[in-house]
């Protein structure tokens, strides 16, 4: 009995102690691994696709070798990354494909995130078939004819229907609704990660099999497996407003950078560099290809690019 009361009192006083010493805003707590040993640390969000890894690799290389920062990278999916960015657990996202809800919430209302400007790359999502197949069957590039080829696109996973392969669950996709609303005889199969999807695409390409996949540009894979986009009903402003009723193509999106508000203000040279960071689709693809296809480490790939494009990045440092 006495033991129980003692524990109760102890627990109570511990709680009091915790709550008594004031408020603790956990949205302002940085990563415990940041700024260790007095080193200035920048934490970058690294997304799962290679293009984003290329951005991060080059930024990391420059921050470490030109400005003397220590860089931590954390892999966070797109939407949670906004939350992490807002809390300061991540300092910057270098490639965002458009999340109007999140932007409204954090940039507009809470003001914990600020825009970091254009990345310089324009992104586009679409449905693709391999070019070798499109050459044999030119009409496959029109969505109305897709049902004709459903049989040829069948796999074990998709069963009786044709397979439309999607990537990571973190990617923006309307494909399930599209298949329903356009009345297509296809089954959406989620590869679970981009790498798994790429592996599968390359295996198909090796055997010259037909396939239909969700894909996006810029993407280095086009260099390896040429693919042709299938035309979906044209995109009009607002046609994708209701995710259940979408029946149109994906838009072309200028990719954006976002910075944590505190970091943007107090981040010194690092923040300035990340704000100025802007390159082209070709630049990004060059680095991506080195990472993904030549299996260079991101650091080696970044070094190669930095060595050969001094004029481009010198401008970011000023």
């Amino acid at each position, binding site marked *: 009995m*006495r*033991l129980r009361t003692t*524990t109760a009192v102890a627990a109570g006083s511990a709680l009091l102690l*915790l*709550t008594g010493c004031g*408020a*603790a*805003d*956990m*949205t*302002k*707590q*940085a*990563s*415990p*691994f940041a700024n*260790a*040993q007095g080193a200035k640390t920048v934490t970058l969000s690294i997304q*799962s696709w*290679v293009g984003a*890894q290329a951005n991060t690799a080059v930024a990391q290389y420059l921050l470490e070798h030109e400005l003397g920062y220590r860089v*931590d*990278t*954390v*892999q*966070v*999916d*797109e*939407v*949670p990354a*906004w*939350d*992490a960015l807002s*809390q300061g*657990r991540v300092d910057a996202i270098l490639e965002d494909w458009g999340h109007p809800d999140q932007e409204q*919430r954090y940039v507009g209302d809470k003001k914990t995130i600020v825009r970091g400007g254009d990345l310089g790359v324009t992104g586009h999502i679409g449905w693709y078939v391999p070019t070798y197949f499109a050459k044999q069957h030119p009409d496959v590039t029109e969505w109305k004819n897709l049902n004709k080829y459903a049989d040829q696109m069948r*796999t*074990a*996973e998709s*069963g009786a229907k044709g397979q439309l*392969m999607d990537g*990571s*669950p973190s990617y923006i996709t309307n494909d399930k609704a599209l298949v329903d609303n356009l009345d297509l005889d296809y089954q959406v*199969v*989620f*590869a*679970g*990660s*981009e*790498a*798994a999807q*790429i*592996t*599968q695409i390359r*295996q198909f390409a090796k*055997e010259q099999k037909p396939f239909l996949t969700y894909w996006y540009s810029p993407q280095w894979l086009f260099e390896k497996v040429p693919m042709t986009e299938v035309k979906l009903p044209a995109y009009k402003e607002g046609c994708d407003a209701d995710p259940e009723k979408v029946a149109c193509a994906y838009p072309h999106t200028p990719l954006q950078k976002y910075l944590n508000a505190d970091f943007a203000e107090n981040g010194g040279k690092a923040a300035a560099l990340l704000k100025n960071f802007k390159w082209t689709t070709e630049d990004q693809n060059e680095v991506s290809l080195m*990472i*993904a296809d030549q*299996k260079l*480490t991101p650091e080696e790939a970044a070094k190669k690019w930095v060595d050969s494009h001094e004029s481009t990045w010198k401008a970011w440092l000023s």
Partner: protein
Amino acid sequence: MATLTATAPRTIPGALKQPAVRKLLLLALVAAILVPLANARWASGAWPDALTVDLSEPLARTSDWIIDNRDSHPLFLYFFGHISNAVVLSVRAVYLVLLAAGWAGVTAIAALVAWRVAGVRLALGTAAGFLTCGLLGMWIPTMQTLALMVVAVLASAVVGALLGLAAGLSDRMDRALRPVLDTMQVLPAFAYLLPVVLVFGIGVPAAVLATVVYAAPPMARLTALGLRGADKEVLEAVESLGSTARQRLLTARIPLARKELLLGLNQTIMMALSMAVIASVIGAGGLGDRVYQALASVDVGAALAAGIPIVLLAVVLDRVTAAAGERLGTERKSPVHWAYALAAAVAIAVAGRLAGRLDWPEAWSLNIADPVNRAVDWMTAHLYSGVPVVGGTAEWAGHFTTWVLDPVRDGLQWLPWWSVLLIVAALAWLIGTWHTALTAVLAMAAIGVLGVWQPSLDTLSQVLAAVAVTLVLGFATGIAAARSDRFERALRPVLDVFQTMPQFVYLIPVVALFGVGRAPAVAAAVVYALPAVVRITTQGLRQVDPAALESARSLGATSAQQLRQVQLPLARRSLLLAVNQGVVLVLAVVIIGGLVGGGALGYDVVFGLAQGDLATGLVAGAAIVCLGLMLDRVTQPTERRTKKGA
């Protein structure tokens, strides 16, 4: 055989006396009344829509509310905020200490501790383990994981010990806690991630708390077990000397339970480590994050470079705590050695500091990624498809999907919903009590109510297929290992490594081999569950009463007869336990299989995490909980309740 005495032909009343037959008849009676009723109202194969509750709206609102109020509401400012703050500060403190000690210091101190508690061989192993981590270029991530682990394990041990103390001392607490702890033990790690993310957001605090929630139950269970299992006569003797309750607790009950306490600590460490890796999905950082990143780019080499330190950490921690447990009660060595060794370790750390070698020198690194990737490329190029006669792994995966996974899934989804409930009830009741049957049926019904009937059956079909494969392979290997000492010795390190390898690491090679889809998820699950099944089978067969075996041998039974008629029947309980463990472990990995195209519930959880769509994720998480509960109850022999070891 002498044992084959003729049994009298059973008459009908005789059959009725069989409890199994009675239970089935009763169940059939209940079904005969309820099924037509249910069928008349909600005639559909799948779970009727009328019986579902849509939780996505309220959940989405809750999630929005939390995000909007996280920086302003007092609950967050004055409670969760402090918890989060404490976690961040303590992880940071440990991390800074580890960095300040430098790689030489950390290695020296770890080896010293291992030497004192476990002997010279383990000390050398520990040092080699840490140096390998550095050599693989993973020093900093290893330290991050270690820092997180230290905090999480301490917190789990304290929380678990307190809960265990409560359950060990009070019968009422025990009755209340035990089912909860038992259930938590069987749930896949993935199911724990979402609720903490909901409250704490992505990051280290969420990761640490998820780890604590996951790792505390074994400590609590073993603490309670140790306190309750203490030698009654010793306690009586202590009481007969006129001790107070407090004296009894401090001088007898807790010291008597120290073996269980250490075993609990050991299990907590192992579970914390596996969770610390999985928690990289919610921003734990460290080694797990490296594996996760490698998974995203199917970079087997990089994954292995990060996976090896995890395995090394796991093996070192496991061996050292296990050895500490075994050494209990033997003579202590003099503390003077400690002093010398400590001085040596500090000297090494200081030397490292003075030499400016705190960070692992970059020149000393071994790039294993390239050769491994080349090997994997070769493997995928040569094994993936078109291998003469046997076909490629991709073809196997395809055939497995078409001929096994699809029929099982379609069959399950074709079954009317009430018949699924009936089957669950019958299985659970036959193997357990009406209590377990009720729990199992309610869990299954809850899945329907949550509106995820179809994806859950999809997941279930993967679990069933994987369990079948696991059991066939596991029993075969287990029997072989039980019959040959040499084979068992050769197998042991392999099992050790596979058991400590984080679940994530399996996913990458299987994608490379089996492509994308449900087949690789099943393959990863089989690989993960196999060691436990093999181990339990071997142990069960080896523990069969030697007298029974001897008597069979004296009657001239062949070794096949011995196995079939003596060993397997006598090891029945172990085999059932193996099935139960197999099911639980398979479920854990099939869920993670969502990351490689396994779809169903696992995909929903990953989707929920990835898109911040906590409504989808939480509902799927709850369904996983129910599925785990149901599967555990359906395969849980009643004996397990009474005789539960670790």
